């Protein structure tokens, strides 16, 4: 199916401004600001309970904020009820209407919009084709696998050509393989229809692999919003650094904007710690482990993961570090081998705690 055959619609900008939402004393959202550019796919990532679902429900109109605004295009939709917001949503729980077939499910929203019968059927067919399920159109939800149900749910959400597409962990109930396949499919479909999309997940790989930008949330606030590679290589806060990917936390001394870590001196990117004690954030791939009789560290564990090898070592001062190497060479290290650990980085993030 080519993009030209689909009736697409210009993506719109979506702004979340200072959203607050409190549930009987729990601050689910504590001033969330987030702007999605037209046609962009933004993933919201964060630990459990940080308010991702709450944020999505506020955008969808399924819940009301205590304060703050939701703006779509130039329209303030904060007080518009969910059924007039023109947003497609895919839920974490299976949400197909059990009494309708896949085709009828996809047609549901079109029917409410009084699209005439033949046009409706055609469009539903097209959407099912888009998600690769045209052959299952007459099946009921109970006759479809979990992955298929979520695909129909996606087709159903897209059929109404929503201004915004909202996805709340649509893949979390599926097994790893189907998940990876379906997330790529979601991205393909999203690029094809060009709808501004907010994708909530707590799976980093999912977030990093398919989105234009990733927003990391913590305790009801946005910590950083950046393209995936920037988020990984240049996290702006210690929380983001620790949350995205694996991270070693190594105590260090900072003087005049330079930190001494494992015998090397590197520039500090964060301005918050300019001198004194701090904790350097070091990625496993920034540490190189070499067998050396003079080395003061000791190998604790070697895990060969195929394309990479993880080596866990303990330094002389008792710290455990994780190193990642590409070659198979590191896999030949054995436990208790004395090794030297070298830092390969020209700048580091240093956190104060």
């Amino acid at each position, binding site marked *: 199916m080519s993009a030209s055959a689909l009736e697409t619609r210009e993506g719109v900008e979506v702004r979340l401004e200072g959203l607050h939402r409190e549930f009987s004393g729990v601050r689910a959202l504590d001033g969330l600001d987030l702007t999605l550019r037209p046609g962009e796919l933004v993933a919201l990532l964060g630990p459990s309970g940080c308010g991702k679902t709450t944020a999505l429900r506020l955008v969808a*109109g399924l819940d009301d904020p205590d304060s703050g605004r939701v703006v779509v295009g130039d329209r303030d939709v904060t007080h518009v009820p969910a059924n007039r917001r023109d947003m*497609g*949503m895919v839920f974490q729980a299976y949400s197909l209407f059990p009494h309708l077939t896949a085709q009828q499910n996809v047609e549901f*929203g079109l029917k*409410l919009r009084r699209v005439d019968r033949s046009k409706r059927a055609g469009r539903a067919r097209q959407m099912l084709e888009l998600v690769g399920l045209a052959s299952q159109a007459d099946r009921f939800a109970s006759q479809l696998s979990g992955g298929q149900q979520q695909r129909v749910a996606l087709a159903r959400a897209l059929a109404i050509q929503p201004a915004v597409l909202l996805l709340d962990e649509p893949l979390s109930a599926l097994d790893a393989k189907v998940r990876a396949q379906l997330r790529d499919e979601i991205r393909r479909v999203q690029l094809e229809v060009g709808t501004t999309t907010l994708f909530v997940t707590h799976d980093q790989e999912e977030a990093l692999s398919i989105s234009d930008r990733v927003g990391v949330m913590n305790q009801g606030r946005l910590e950083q919003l950046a393209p995936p590679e920037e988020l990984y290589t240049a996290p702006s806060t210690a929380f983001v650094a620790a949350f995205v990917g694996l991270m070693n936390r190594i105590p260090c001394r900072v003087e005049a904007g330079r930190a001494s870590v494992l015998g090397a001196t590197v520039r500090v990117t964060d301005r918050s710690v300019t001198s004194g004690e701090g904790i350097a954030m070091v990625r496993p791939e920034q540490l190189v482990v070499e067998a050396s009789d003079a080395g003061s560290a000791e190998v604790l564990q070697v895990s060969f993961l195929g394309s990479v090898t993880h080596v866990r070592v303990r330094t002389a001062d008792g710290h455990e570090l994780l190193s990642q190497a590409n070659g198979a060479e590191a896999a030949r290290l054995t436990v208790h081998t004395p090794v030297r650990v070298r830092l390969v980085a020209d700048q580091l993030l240093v956190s104060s705690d």
Partner: protein
Amino acid sequence: MTLPRQRRARRQRAFRIVTFVVLGAFFLIPLVSMVDFSTRGTAGSGRTGEAWGALLHDPELTAAIITSLELAALTVIGMVLLLVPTMVWVRLRVQWAARMVEFLCLLPLTIPALVIVVGIAPVYAWVTYFLGGSALTLTFAYVVLVLPYAFRSLDAGLSAIDLTTLSEAARSLGAGWFTVIARVVVPNIVSALLSAAFISVALVLGEFTFASLLHYDNLQVVIAFFGKSNAKVSVSASLAALIFGFVLLLLLSLLGRGRKGRRTTAIEPLAVTTPAGKEVKG
């Protein structure tokens, strides 16, 4: 190994047959006696359909039958209109009120009908004042009367579906609350609705206390009246009401099976592949 199993199977079959015969006799003998009595000729011999003919021809009785059927229909409509939106709303928006609503709905079960009538009589003076003296005003009392049974049935039906997700999905697709209830909730609780409706109909057709004490002529009141003057007509009317109830029950179970059939036949290919499924079927 096979011997005890066979013996057990045989014993089970015997038990089943005995139960069936005893219970069947228990239910059928009174019914057959009713048929016998209501068709007995005037001289004590021969058969006559007079008493049954009266169901259609006696103006008082036909009027009462029509009133009771109308009451049954109105009660079902009233019950559905009152309960379904309320229960959906309570589940989605005001969970804290769930206990209270359940308590209120089950309350009529714990209070004897007689007591309710005594309490409700003054209210009915006003109902009569505003809506006239038609027996159909009994609908209000009957909706209250059937609440506990209808509530139980609908509660089970609503618990069986993921109401929150389904309604949120429908809303995000553009459905208002009315559409959510009519197009999404109701089609998915059809069996529960049918059984709530059936039990309401059965209750209304058999109701005597309210109607009698509030001085309305419904089927049971007229049957009781005939019981004093023309016992045969009274018995034929009672039997007709019972049979009507049976037919409704039968229709209900057929409908229920029909719906289930649609779902399960479709899943069958899956069930066959699992050995466990085969064993259960065999």
